[in-house]
């Protein structure tokens, strides 16, 4: 690990103002320190925000919840309001990492975690995300865990979060403050970016901008499910995951919301696929049409070709489960 200066922030304004080139904000640190040990991340200074009062979950006037950026993943998953009204979020959080990591990892940090691409982690290999312009070793490499949607010739990494997939299906908003003290609200759809030709830029956060909270609108009607497919039964990243909220009655779908993990550099949502599920019978033919829409433009890179049929089958299974009467 490279040497760095350490500073404890006593207010959000102080933290944002102290951010300069080479600074990283540390909260749970479960991903950042992992990367610092491997010298994938080499910050010259750390600002510790753990003592800031951003650890509360509050009701909002519109029937939603406001989740402080420092609420730990385990506390968010266990909150009775989340379990009652946002089961998809609770289940997604519990599907991620281990209990020890969830006790440490925060809401804001989870959104900002970096890809687990092997080549991003290996500093002896080319990686446009870690070292822009050096190339992508995953394109022709071992790319079993890599993306099939929204990729570019520069990067085929996936976003590793389960939590963010559930937040995407719930249309969460991300509240931030910058070094001037100005607040901003970023819809989660616009928060994570696709790689394009700048895979090193992963979010729409500006320099000196800190996440302070995530807000959830009132839950939409329907059954909520989070289904994660992975190599082990527990403590493994998703190969494919589906967050679904499906409103149906007696074998007919009124509306469906779908978000996918493990497929792209951001939690994936397909407006087209959701349109195909508006007011249709809950049949295999409808599920197939939706899967075709999700997988429009999907492309495998060899080792991850299996994700295309796996996505289709997982979606079928989720839609069958949520429309069972």
């Amino acid at each position, binding site marked *: 690990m490279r040497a760095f200066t350490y500073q404890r922030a006593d207010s959000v304004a102080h933290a944002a103002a102290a951010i300069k080139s080479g600074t990283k904000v540390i909260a749970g640190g479960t991903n950042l320190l992992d990367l610092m*040990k491997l010298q994938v991340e080499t910050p010259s200074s750390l600002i510790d925000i753990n003592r800031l009062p951003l650890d509360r979950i509050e009701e909002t006037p519109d029937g939603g919840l406001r989740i402080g950026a420092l609420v730990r993943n385990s506390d968010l998953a266990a909150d009775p309001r989340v379990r009652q009204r946002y089961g998809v979020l609770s289940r997604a959080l519990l599907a991620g990492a281990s209990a020890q990591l969830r006790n440490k990892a925060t809401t804001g940090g989870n959104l900002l975690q970096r890809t687990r691409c092997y080549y991003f982690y290996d500093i002896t290999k080319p990686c446009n995300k870690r070292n822009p312009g050096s190339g992508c070793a995953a394109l022709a490499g071992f790319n079993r865990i890599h993306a099939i949607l929204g990729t570019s010739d520069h990067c085929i990494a996936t976003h590793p979060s389960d939590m963010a997939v559930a937040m995407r299906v719930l249309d969460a908003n991300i509240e931030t403050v910058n070094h001037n003290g100005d607040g901003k609200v970023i819809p989660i759809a616009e928060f994570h970016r696709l790689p394009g030709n700048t895979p090193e830029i992963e979010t729409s956060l500006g320099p000196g901008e800190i996440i302070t909270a995530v807000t959830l609108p009132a839950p939409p009607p329907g059954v909520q499910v989070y289904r994660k497919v992975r190599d082990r039964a527990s403590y493994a990243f998703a190969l494919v995951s589906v967050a679904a909220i499906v409103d149906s009655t007696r074998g007919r779908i009124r509306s469906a919301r779908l978000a996918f993990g493990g497929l792209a550099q951001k939690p994936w949502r397909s407006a087209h696929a959701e349109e195909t599920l508006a007011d249709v019978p809950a049949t295999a033919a409808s599920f197939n049409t939706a899967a075709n829409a999700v997988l429009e433009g999907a492309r495998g890179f060899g080792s991850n070709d299996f994700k295309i049929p796996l996505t289709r089958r997982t979606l079928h299974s989720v839609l069958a489960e949520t429309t069972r009467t």
Partner: protein
Amino acid sequence: MDEPESDKQPDAPNAFEVTRRTVIETGAAALLLTTLPRAALATGAADYSEPPAHLEKVELQINDQPHSLMLDPRTTLLDALREHLALTGSKKGCDHGQCGACTVLIDGRRINSCLTLAVMHDGQSITTIEGLAAGDELHPLQAAFVEHDGFQCGYCTSGQICSAVGMLAESRQGMPSYVTEDLTQPAAELTDTEIRERMSGNICRCAAYPNIVAAIKQAEGMAT
């Protein structure tokens, strides 16, 4: 601050100088090969070749004893315990939060001590495996692990036991797990499936899992 010599790893260990530590790391490496990037496997103890930017004063309450340390901010909580305070019960397995051997309790909650900096815990209370027994009387989970033979080589055991202490507390507080059938219910019954899911952050290379589950089940009903 220099890392003690004993923790410095040669880049290419001499085949004739296989130490116990090398054997353990090789075992952990084989175990984690499917999930760990290659670079992680090549990394030994923390690289402190660069001098610290500054030292930080850190006050920790460990097993009810106050400790005051001047630390390089890079020092993980695990290295502070093992290398600065000689509390070597907490083990360094993967050093990347994947094996659970370093699990300790901070204000009663289990975490991976390898993936946090000691300075981040200034003023907090930490319980390690050394702090669980009451004098000569083993903690119920320690006794249950002995009774059920919940280990073979023992390297993961202190992490397993600290994790189980935290897990039983979480369960009593009604925290759900991924396999909890109905999330709207306040508390789940601690079935074998629940125990296995809740303990999945602790890997046992010897696969003593059935006995670990049995030990935890026995301790569950007792005051821990």
